[in-house]
């Protein structure tokens, strides 16, 4: 496939790896923000090609992982109601709430459906006027334009039986929360290429300056990640702290203007709780006043739910790159993909799941 396969070329990958090795004179810790990047790194083994001096840590770039526990509980409550058709991206279905997950709700008779696009949920609403269709609107800024469009069209077309359960999170506040933490080890960032495709990257410039960290907007294929790491390491070695764009085939500095306009129309910035981390001010999106009628939390009266996290799950420190999954005492024993304690083990993008699937035996062997 064009614009995919060529970015998975082995020789080019090895060349970039050599370039990185030759450029590095001391150890550096770089965080890749996006779950999609984590997935590619672990799947293709990009980190195996890197010299030992470059350490990649996995950030909270998995909106599935950071969706707060109470929101899953709200989703489960709504999905369990007989009049509801609950539509979601596949990623969310196995994330554990306080006592079960959406797949269990489906097994018990709830009408839970996987959709590829929020517009598919809207079509289901049109086809089922007697039912309430709720869409689980989870995601970073990348998915916000799609979710905005669905709600916008619902209002335009008067589709009253449609609503969304919103859990949008924003990347820059999360990066700041990590950088401002006293236990932060991250020296450079690979920013999320598709988030920046939508939002542009001007909002990262003050962050790079304030915390003196290089930020490289990076794509998702192995070559993108390798080139992103190279550009980041080069900045670190040179003592620069700028925002650069590796993923220029998709990302423009100003981002996608029409998408940003519709996001501003339909959503507003709100504080959001990040699972395992806590509440970060101005770190999420909620529906704006004109679209509150489509807010599922209000429509179904679940806005006041609260929940508490597992004591064993250390997703929070893992999401901040402070610990690696295999350093968790529950990893691979009490916490596995079959019985996860937290979202990072359930989501295919979660660092713990990625480590479990691709690394477990190697790590176990190394411990012996």
């Amino acid at each position, binding site marked *: *496939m064009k614009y995919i396969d060529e970015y*998975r*070329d*082995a020789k080019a990958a*090895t060349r970039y790896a050599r370039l990185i090795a030759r450029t590095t004179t001391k150890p550096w810790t770089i965080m890749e923000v996006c*779950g*999609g990047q984590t997935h590619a790194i*672990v*799947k*293709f*083994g*990009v980190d*195996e*090609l890197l010299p030992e001096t470059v350490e990649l840590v996995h950030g909270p770039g*998995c909106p*599935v992982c950071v969706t707060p526990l109470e929101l899953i509980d709200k989703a489960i409550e709504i999905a369990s109601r007989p009049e509801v058709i609950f539509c979601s*991206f*596949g*990623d969310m279905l196995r994330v*554990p709430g306080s*006592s079960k*997950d959406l*797949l*269990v709700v*489906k*097994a*018990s008779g709830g009408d839970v459906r996987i959709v*590829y696009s929020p517009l*598919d949920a809207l079509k289901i609403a049109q086809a089922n006027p007697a039912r309430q269709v709720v869409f689980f609107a989870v*995601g970073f800024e990348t*998915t916000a334009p799609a979710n905005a469009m669905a709600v916008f069209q619902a209002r335009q077309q008067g589709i009253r039986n449609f609503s969304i359960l919103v859990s949008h999170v924003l990347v820059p*506040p999360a990066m700041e*929360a990590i950088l401002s*933490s006293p236990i932060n080890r991250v020296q450079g960032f690979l920013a999320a290429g598709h988030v920046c495709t939508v939002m542009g990257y001007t909002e990262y410039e003050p962050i790079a300056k304030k915390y003196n960290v290089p930020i490289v907007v990076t794509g998702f294929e*192995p070559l993108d990640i390798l080139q992103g790491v190279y550009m980041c390491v080069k900045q670190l070695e040179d003592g620069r702290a700028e925002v650069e764009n590796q993923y220029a085939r998709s990302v423009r500095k100003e981002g996608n203007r029409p998408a940003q306009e519709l996001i501003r129309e339909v959503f507003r910035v709100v504080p959001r709780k990040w699972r*395992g*981390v*806590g*509440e*970060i001010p101005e770190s999420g999106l909620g529906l704006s006043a004109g679209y509150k009628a489509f807010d599922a939390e209000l429509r179904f009266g679940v806005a006041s739910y609260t929940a*508490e*996290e*597992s*004591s*064993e799950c250390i997703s929070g420190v893992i999401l901040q790159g402070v610990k690696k999954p295999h350093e968790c005492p529950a990893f691979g024993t*009490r916490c*596995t*993909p*079959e*019985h*996860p304690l937290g979202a990072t083990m359930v989501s*295919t*993008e979660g660092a713990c799941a990625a480590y*479990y*699937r*691709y*690394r477990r*035996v*190697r790590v176990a*062997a190394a411990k012996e």
Partner: protein
Amino acid sequence: MASVKEFALSCPIPIDQYPNVLLAHGGGGRLMHQLIETMFVPVFSNPLLDARHDGAVIHLNGTKLAFTTDSYVVRPLFFPGGDIGTLAINGTVNDLAMCGARPLYLSAGFILEEGLPMETLWRVVQSMKRAAEEAGVQLVTGDTKVVDKGKGDEVFINTAGVGIIEHDLTIAPTSVQAGDVVLLSGDIGRHGIAIMAVREGLEFESAIESDCAPLADIVMKLLDAGVRVRCMRDLTRGGLASALIEIAEAANVHINIDESVIPVREDVQGACEILGFDPLYLANEGRFVAFVAASDAERALGLMSAHASGRGACVVGRVTEDAPAMVTMRSRIGATRIVDMFSGEQLPRIC
């Protein structure tokens, strides 16, 4: 600006016991294997069952027979490239072939939902007839039940099959040894995507067809030519990855494969990229892996490639050493990773 807090301590119920069966228990991945290993195998344990192969190999008065069964619950009933009827015949034919048996006789049990149009049943039955003819088997006994509307998904079919083994090879995971070559009969992922596309309403305008096909003939060609086949497995639910992991675990060997040689058609790749699927775990219905003695590998590959069911056959890997039992894969960019079972079904993802 918010900084890191220690998170609140509390203790929820860990979701480790599933009091109810989930769809994932049928997905071909870890959960299904756990179910089989904890619910069924220990209860019925005997040497034939414990061999854990696709079919049981029975020695009866000097004759070697293979016996297998499979149930078919596919939704939608009709999909590009086949239907539940073709699957019902070929699935069982192929399980027999994977034991190195020549499939002979099948039974078919139908569970029909009240209200099923006769026309639909007729189409399925006609498909079964064609598939049976193509595979050279006869349907010799059967059963029919009807359940209340709402209690069955239009049609469920169970087929059981008997075949005869006319050679002296022990074709089972226990025969696999270090140095053996792993052959794959063709490109992967077509069936899984064909089904997913129709079932999830993910309409692709150019339909990908299932690869559903009988494999008895191509297997017989290998055996007749004296290829030392150690073990075979058709790639059904759970895909290439699950088949190899099952064999690695049953045989207690280390299998190493090369991602860059695994054939995936470009349109299947396109669908996988959009849905976030890994083709390694996608269902197939007309593909198999064969573990053969290294010195027979080239000859086997030639025979497979020359056969209609083996176009695109290739060497995907080797059995490298006797332990530990695992499957590793050299990725496209040259790094090696462990291939593990999926815990449930692959779900389309956005992340």
